[in-house]
């Protein structure tokens, strides 16, 4: 991994993430017969948040101020573990799937602390809900990725991709179909989408992710929003790249190959985004106590996927 590729990777993470959020928001509006905000609205929002003054509760401690930075850097680090347009992820030598899950969990842990710290009722509610749900979502995520890892005989995502591009790989392996379904549910939960959470609501009492960040404003809010969209991009890229490793540039490839790879990535992200939009539009939000059922379903799917890797070997 050389520095231009690292640079491209980081630029993609930072630059592409708001666009993905914007596209999903815009398409959702289109499906509801609304005009919707332009796809670049999240960039304008970020720019606005960075310009604005912050209002910070007088009950907030240093922890509250540290959270946006910890969250942002842990999310970026997690992003550097996932191959985007080249099979070699910039930080793959430092860790694989376990590190990815760990880094995301670290960010979430701090975000939950940030929700609790100012002592407002909504923040505490959001934090408790988020931690409850993630306790089930995380194992499902790990199991699902392990399914692929077993096939590749490595938990390193770059290794997994290289194995995926190898000759013995079957695209519609039953184990992979199950694991993909599990990961898709986890994606909905982790990115706060309907039917788990509603990113567009103004009703504090129903919020999960939004409730935790209600007390944040200005630059801190910008960092948190940006982290949330980066996390969404990372999870989506993980999903599309390990299950559909089409067109990803091999190590040390030319600029042309990287460009082709980028186009493939965008196409795959758009397809996955469209699937998310469809789910969000055709479903109502689940009752909060039903969400664990959904996530358990994801966990069971992932467990079955793991089992079937041995059965169909």
């Amino acid at each position, binding site marked *: 991994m050389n520095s231009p590729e690292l640079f491209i990777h980081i630029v993609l993470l930072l630059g592409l993430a708001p666009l993905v959020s914007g596209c999903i928001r815009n398409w*959702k509006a289109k*499906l*509801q*017969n*609304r005009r919707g905000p332009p796809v670049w609205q999240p960039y304008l929002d970020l720019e606005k948040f960075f310009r604005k003054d912050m209002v910070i509760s007088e009950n907030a401690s240093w922890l509250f101020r540290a959270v946006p930075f910890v969250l942002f850097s842990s999310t970026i680090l997690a992003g550097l573990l996932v191959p985007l347009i080249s099979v070699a992820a910039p930080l793959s030598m430092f860790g694989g799937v376990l590190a990815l899950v760990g880094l995301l969990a670290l960010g979430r842990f701090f975000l939950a602390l940030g929700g609790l710290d100012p002592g407002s*009722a*909504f923040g*505490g*509610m959001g934090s408790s809900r988020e931690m409850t749900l993630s306790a089930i979502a995380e194992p499902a995520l790990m199991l699902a990725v392990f399914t692929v890892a077993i096939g590749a005989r490595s938990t390193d995502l770059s290794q997994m991709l290289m194995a995926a591009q190898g000759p013995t790989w079957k695209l519609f392996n039953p184990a992979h179909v199950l694991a993909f379904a599990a990961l898709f549910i986890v994606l909905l939960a982790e990115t706060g989408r*309907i*039917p788990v959470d*509603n990113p*567009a*609501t*103004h*009703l*504090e*009492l*129903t919020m999960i992710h939004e409730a935790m960040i209600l007390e944040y404003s200005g630059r801190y809010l910008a960092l948190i929003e940006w982290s949330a969209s980066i996390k969404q991009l990372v999870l989506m890229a993980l999903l599309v790249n390990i299950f559909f490793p089409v067109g990803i540039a091999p190590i040390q490839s030319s600029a042309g190959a990287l460009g082709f790879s980028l186009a493939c990535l965008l196409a795959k992200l758009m397809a996955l985004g469209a699937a998310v939009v469809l789910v969000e*539009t*055709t*479903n*109502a*939000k*689940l*009752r*909060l*106590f*039903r969400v664990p059922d959904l996530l358990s379903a994801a966990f069971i799917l992932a467990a079955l996927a793991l089992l079937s890797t041995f059965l169909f070997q």
Partner: protein
Amino acid sequence: MTTLYDPARILAALQPAFADLTDRFGSRIQAIEAPRPNEVYLQVQMDLVSGLCAQLYRKWQARLVSVFADDVREAAGVFHVYYVLALDAAQGFFVLRVPLTPEQGKVVSLANALPAVNWQEREIQDLFGIPLGGHPNPRRCALHDDWPEVHPLRKDFDVKTALPPFQGERHKFRKVEGEGVFQVPVGPVHAGIIEPGHFLFSVAGEPVLYLQIRLFYTHKGTEKLFENLPVSHGVRLAESISGDSSFAHATAFCHAIERASGIEAPPRARALRTVCLELERLYNHIADIGAIATDVAFVVANAHAMRLKETVLRLNGQLTGNRLLRGMACPGGVRFDWTTEQIKTISNFVRDLMPEFDSLVTLISESSSTRDRLETTGILTPKTARDLGVTGLAGRASGFNGDLRRDFPHTAYDQVQFTVPVYQEGDVLRRMQVRIDEVRQSLSIIEQVLARLPQGPVQVKVPDLHPGAVALGYVEGWRGEIFHWIRAAGPQRLARCKIKDPSLQNWPALSEAILGNIIPDFPVVNKSFNLSYSGTDR
């Protein structure tokens, strides 16, 4: 016993109940007046009220729909406290009038037996300074705890009085204690563009143990303002009591004025009023159906509902010059007649709306995830609903079989056929179902009215009011029954206008319906009632 009006004038259907009351309490009833066949006033002493109410409740299935006071110290040296009892089956009202001396008078609370009057009795205490005896929770209500000792609805209180900055006590909420119990305060300022109201949830984890609702943040002294306005301006004020029920409130007010002056709006005016009332019901019900879908994040349905609501609002604008039907109502009829072309527009509109509304309903009813959220959520049992006197659509979803349009036909409702949907389950789904059924009924009512639209004037002149004349006006608004009770001061002036919005009656039911539900379900339960803050606070 003095009889000021011929008892023979009393509505035939009310006679049995009337005879029963006079038999049983005859000598203790001080005076009887029947200014209108279905509105009978019985003057009694305070100690007789609970007996009379109990008899009317148990034997004649009466409902206590309004409790209020009136300051007549200047003329008679006393306060009057009124109890309005509606006998749905007999299509009539008994109004108990209780004189109370300013020195010793005391309202004996009925709230222990009839929780439905809890807030209304406390309001009398706040606004008139008449002490309240035997009330389970005689704290401040309409005027918050920090108000100075003033009683704005007394005649000697000038509406222009400038009060010093409030420095009184802060409200003390009830404590709920236990392991893991914590409080979630919400409001009074909310995230949406809505009015203020404070909700204090006591929760153990997610389930709600207790909900305290504190309202009256937007108390505007509307009832006092009526006393300073000529009747013609009063209509405009009535329109602003609760924005989403502009026409219903204005019509209830006009109805009271018309009854007080002994006239009736001409047939064509009554027909047009009926159409307007149904248009108001249409746009509110459709919007609420969409809003309930939004609160469970089924946003597509809301997008469709908002589009349909907009078409109704535009029709309203086209017909009356105002999207919320303001400026249409006036005593003696309606302000504008509609041309044949406009009538045709309405017919076409109704015909086009029906299939569109059906497809909206299909969209919602075919979404199993939405149904899962709404069914068994926020159950208000029929028993609780009866105890709290819950009226209107919320009541009908919880077994209350009453609708003023059917039971006390006003405007042109006696000319049309419709059914009143009643459900027993009392959950959010049923409150939405009542709305869906009523939208269909409304469309049919409009069609029926237009098919047999009478010709003739749309307005008659309202003769001057007799000083001292009293009358009860009533209208079934989209939310429930609206009552306006007036007492005339002069030919064009009112001495008292009491407004009863169904929201005042139904708010406490929300605290009951949410018990045992989880806190993220509160918004949808609240939306399924969709009560007015402004109509409650006045």
